[in-house]
């Protein structure tokens, strides 16, 4: 239990320091320092791309959206205020772009072609390990199932789960990103995890 508290405390301190650094870097970007923008980009590029990949499921599309996110950050550097958490701002733009993309492409794309592209993307990572053919197949099947159940969640529930699980955001920060109340976020997460528990119950 003590270990749990210490670990949580360290995580909070590290996060707080990172937040201060982000704000400081962004202030420098506002003053015209492009090096600071590169530092911010290198620090947040992977989480943003991964978040968008899990949202839209197609990595090239996710990367294009992520570039749009950083382009918008750069374009609006003059109006940045350090009072706003940088990551909240960043993920608000990312979520907004992802939800718009999902809305626009819902009727344009067939589910079949979408699955194919994702499948190709996943193939690269699972074949890196030293798994037997059978283990590899089982793992692929589990991954496919995980992706499918996340994909089946309503868009806002999915965004909330992805930020909570993979970005380790607390309820308050997710609320700021999604521009809703903390209780609304809890409700979104409870319903999402309830659905996920039911659908993934058979996994050991």
């Amino acid at each position, binding site marked *: *239990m003590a270990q*749990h508290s210490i670990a949580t405390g360290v995580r909070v301190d590290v996060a707080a320091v990172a937040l201060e650094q982000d704000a400081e870097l962004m202030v420098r970007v506002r003053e015209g320092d492009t090096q600071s923008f590169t530092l911010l980009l290198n620090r947040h590029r992977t989480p943003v791309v991964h978040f968008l990949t899990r949202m839209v499921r197609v990595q090239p599309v996710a990367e294009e959206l992520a570039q749009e996110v950083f382009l918008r950050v750069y374009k609006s550097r003059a109006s940045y205020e350090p009072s706003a958490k940088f990551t909240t701002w960043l993920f608000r733009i990312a979520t907004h772009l992802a939800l718009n993309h999902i809305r626009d492409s819902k009727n344009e794309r067939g589910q079949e072609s979408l699955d194919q592209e994702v499948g190709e993307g996943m193939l690269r990572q699972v074949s890196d390990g030293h798994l037997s053919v059978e283990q590899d197949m089982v793992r692929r099947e589990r991954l496919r199932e*995980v992706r499918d159940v996340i994909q089946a969640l309503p868009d806002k529930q999915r965004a909330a789960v992805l930020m909570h699980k993979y970005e380790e955001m607390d309820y308050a920060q997710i609320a700021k990103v999604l521009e809703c109340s903390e209780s609304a976020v809890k409700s979104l997460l409870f319903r999402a995890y309830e659905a*996920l528990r039911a659908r993934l119950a058979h996994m050991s």
Partner: protein
Amino acid sequence: MACTLENREEMLIDYVDGSLPADRLAQMMSHMKGCAECRVAADAQLRVWTALEEWTPAPVSADFNRTLYQKIDVEQSKGWWQRLAWPPLGLAAACMVLVVAMLFRVPGGPVNEPEKKADVTIDVNQVDRTLEDIEMFKQLGVGNDVNEAEGVL
């Protein structure tokens, strides 16, 4: 016996992701000793947590930064008027044009009336001229030549 744990869902999620403060963690652990329902739910939540960890997207493309900087360069090389071509501004501009057009449009106003009459006069003159031209072509036999030419083609 039904579970009586307060904020059960939040406690379950926070318990599994390790974000429960020490006092609430102790409360949860003590509660679960006597509540089979919560033990099963916590186990299921742990399975979800573990399953989600398996999904790691592929690494970001090596040319991600380069492509982004190219887009930034393109953006910076744009003139101020092009930067104003931002969609919401375009929409605002279109709305303004519409509003201005509606302000200047007086129904049955004196400015538009003579123009309309002039249009009607021109149309009648054009019809007259066209009829005269047709008559003239008939007299000159041009229509026959045209028919012959079409036949050759």
